[in-house]
């Protein structure tokens, strides 16, 4: 090997980590929830039973989110979040690996029950092309938008009409199964928080201060539009809802949770 070749190889070895690090995406300014190892919060989720007559809301399930560690995955420091139900009889959990920098999902592990015992499914997601995380095949309520969320103060204002809704960010979500790739579109829109959610925000003001964010995740697939409310200082969305799910962040301290929608009378065991 010539001296020149040796120098070239050495240069590549020295520069590679720097270039790799340089490729790691830098977050734009805006709101990104921050956690530390040991943080824990609880979500209460109600699910609508769409297969049954009268589509009743089922009794809610409480999900505990626990920040277990920070691990380096694909050259990114990631929070490792263990999500499990308070009721241990439910055999569903998830482990999320979210980049510390902007919470982009890097790996998702779903745990689910079968008649033959509990199984797991591991999904590695493309960290270079983050898309909203939607739990289309799991009950665990880990839906989240692409961060950072834009602050009102930096949103576009024309000076005449005042506040202008930002345009939707469109993401192609592609799911691959063998030789098949299924594509659907998810549009993420930040909105000025609507007045009807004022009570929700007020509930969390005691535990969180700062700006409030409303995000809509419109899915061209079957799940429809999910509306999330994020509050600066709160560890997770204080509210998420679509036509089939209603999820609330349980305030720390004495439990005070918005009740699920009033169940309607069922027509009984329709086949």
């Amino acid at each position: 090997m010539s001296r020149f070749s040796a120098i070239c190889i050495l240069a590549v070895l020295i520069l590679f980590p720097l270039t790799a690090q340089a490729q790691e995406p830098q977050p734009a300014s805006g709101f990104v929830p921050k956690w530390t190892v040991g943080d824990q919060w609880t979500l209460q989720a109600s699910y609508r039973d769409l297969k049954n007559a009268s589509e009743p809301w089922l009794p809610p399930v409480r999900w505990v989110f626990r920040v277990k560690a920070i691990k380096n995955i694909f050259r990114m420091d990631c929070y490792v979040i263990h999500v499990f139900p308070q009721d241990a009889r439910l055999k569903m959990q998830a482990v999320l690996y979210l980049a510390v920098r902007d919470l982009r999902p890097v790996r998702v592990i779903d745990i689910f029950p079968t008649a033959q015992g509990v199984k797991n499914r591991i999904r590695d997601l493309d960290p270079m092309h983050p898309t909203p995380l939607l739990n289309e095949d799991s009950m665990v309520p880990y839906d989240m938008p692409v961060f950072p969320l834009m602050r009102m103060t930096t949103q576009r204002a024309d000076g005449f009409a005042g506040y202008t809704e930002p345009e939707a960010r469109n993401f192609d979500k592609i799911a691959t199964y063998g030789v098949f790739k299924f594509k659907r579109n998810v549009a993420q829109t930040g909105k000025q928080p609507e007045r009807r959610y004022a009570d929700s925000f007020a509930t969390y003001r005691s535990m969180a201060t700062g700006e409030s964010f409303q995000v809509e995740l419109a899915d061209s697939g079957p799940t429809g539009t999910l509306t999330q409310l994020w509050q600066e200082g709160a560890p997770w969305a204080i509210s998420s809802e679509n036509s089939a799910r209603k999820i609330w962040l349980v305030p720390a301290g004495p439990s005070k949770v918005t009740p699920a929608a009033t169940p309607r009378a069922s027509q009984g065991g329709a086949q």
Partner: protein
Amino acid sequence: MKARLLVAISIFFAFALLVTPFKALSADFLTSLFGEHNSASGEIKPAPWSGDWWSRKKGFNIKGWPGHTPSPFERYDQYVLGRTGQNPGATAWESDPANTHYGPQSEDWEGHCNGWSGASVLEPEPHETKIRNGISFETSDQKAILSELYMNTYCMFYGKRNWGNHGDDPLDIYPDQFHKLLLEYIAGQKSAVVCDITPDRQVWNYPLYKFESSWQPSFLNDKKLKVRTVCTYADDGVKPDYHGTKSMTITYTYNLIIDDQGNIVSGEWTGDSVQNHPDFVWVPTADAPNPPGTVQENPNLDTRFVHEITNGAAVVQVNPEALLSEAGLNTADLF
């Protein structure tokens, strides 16, 4: 005669020349996507078990049937009475027509097929008679109370139920979504799924546990894949004491529409499947309690006692990380 033959041969070759470029284009594009693959399959083993669907009209679960008395619910009440000193009243509740689980005037198709489907996907099949507190629970008794227990289930739900109302989409669930679910759940070895196999107002739930799909390019459209899928369901057209899985198959045909990048973006049912395809699909994930004020599930049936009868006393893991190990994951690697 000779002239006519020559004309016919000329027309044949002209047509062949005309369609060849389309055919070649179609084959090339799709070959680049799928290579030599032209089939997919999957099967969940063991299959969900067959069982009675506990017709509302017949009321076998509360009245028993020829050669089988007391009924499954009467045995349950006796068991709980022995355990707690109090009759839970499961039979009485189920027998009250006001609760809509039993009624001689019910429609012929109404029953507990959703409960049976959920139980057969999530619970192992009862294989032997269990004697609990001196009361005999045959496999049919166990299946009857399990089918009631799963009348409410937490589940993943796909498609939209057709209520027979104006505006309901008779073509939903669409085949691209259905095909994706087969690959995700059945080929991916996750779980059997439950389908309402009729696209109209009636609901006929059956667990789907096996499929075999094959496809070929559309003759003239290189963005269309013509698919034929044979789905195998566990059948509930059996006697209450049936053991194992009686299967039935339904063949669906549909087109999957592909964009320029080779992604499937939509689908359309074809042939008989336009009228005969699943209405919605759901994947049970857990037994759910009865919502207050509803009668979907018998509130006098207790999950704990049902499982005592079918499985013996269960130990619930308190440490959530234990479930990760049960799922084959190493917590030291995860965290």
